[in-house]
């Protein structure tokens, strides 16, 4: 398989996971949240300064349909992470002159 094909398949899989499967993820508190609540560690917790931001909790503010909101949130997240990934690529790739091909 070419690395380009692997890249495309990986991106598509990520979009499916973040956009569609995420809707079916467990909404129970995660391990740390649960223990924090049970043991009283969360009494001092405060909302993050950006807790009311448009994309808080992986939804999109103003999109009423929960499924659409979760889909958009996931896909936007994949897109933003992908952009950061392009930045990583530029940083990590060896200088053109050093490439053998």
């Amino acid at each position, binding site marked *: 398989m070419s690395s380009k094909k692997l890249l495309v398949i990986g*991106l598509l899989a990520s979009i499916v996971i973040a956009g569609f499967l*995420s809707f079916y993820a467990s909404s*129970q508190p995660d*391990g740390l949240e649960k223990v*924090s609540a049970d043991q009283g560690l969360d009494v001092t*917790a405060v909302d993050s300064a950006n807790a009311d931001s448009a994309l808080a909790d992986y939804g999109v503010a103003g999109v009423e349909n929960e499924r659409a909101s979760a889909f958009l949130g996931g896909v936007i997240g994949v897109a933003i992470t992908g952009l950061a990934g392009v930045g990583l*690529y530029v940083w990590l790739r060896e200088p053109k002159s050093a490439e053998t091909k």
Partner: protein
Amino acid sequence: MHMPDGLINAPVSIGAGVLVAGAVAVSLKKTKGSLDSQTAPMAGLVAVFIFAAQMINFPVAAGTSGHLMGGALAAILVGPWVAVLVMTVVVGIQALVFADGGLSALGINILNMGIVTVIVGTLVFALTMKVLSKTKSSIVAASAIAAFISVPAAALAFVIEYYLGGNATYDPMTVLISVVGVHLLIGIGEAIITALTVGAILATRADLVDGARKFLPKQKLIIKDSVVS
């Protein structure tokens, strides 16, 4: 595993932030221009995949869920230095864009989920490969074990940080046992997802798996390249 703001005091949060900044600076320096045009895109793909996979909370016990951290997975796929950058990107975007994990807690969250998991995952993977035969199935098994151990290790890091700077009064022993205990369960999910992912890439493009490169025979493409140069 994303800690909100307010749980741990400023000195410990800042201390963690300084540690993370140092680790990121060293990782940036170590990795600049270090990958070829085949392997460099993997870093971005691994970041995107871990971001997506972290959204899937799976049930682990009554009323409790867990999700992939991905540090061990990243370390095996792209090497520990690049993995630190990948995890910093993922946990950073989660906090800054999606308000998942506090802003003042960002240093601690990157330290636990993005650095402790990478270090422990890398070490456990290397140690396990020492005793296993150098085959693809061994690499998958070692990935699973590394991923499994990395999760309670991150949980233990949180317990230590909370011991140093926790804001609430609490029972340290109970918290230690319950936080590490539940993360042993979450570690099983981490091991399964990591093994499946590493297995899938090993089956198609083993040469793109950093952790596998020194254990498997070199691919034709790499030999050709070195002849040409």
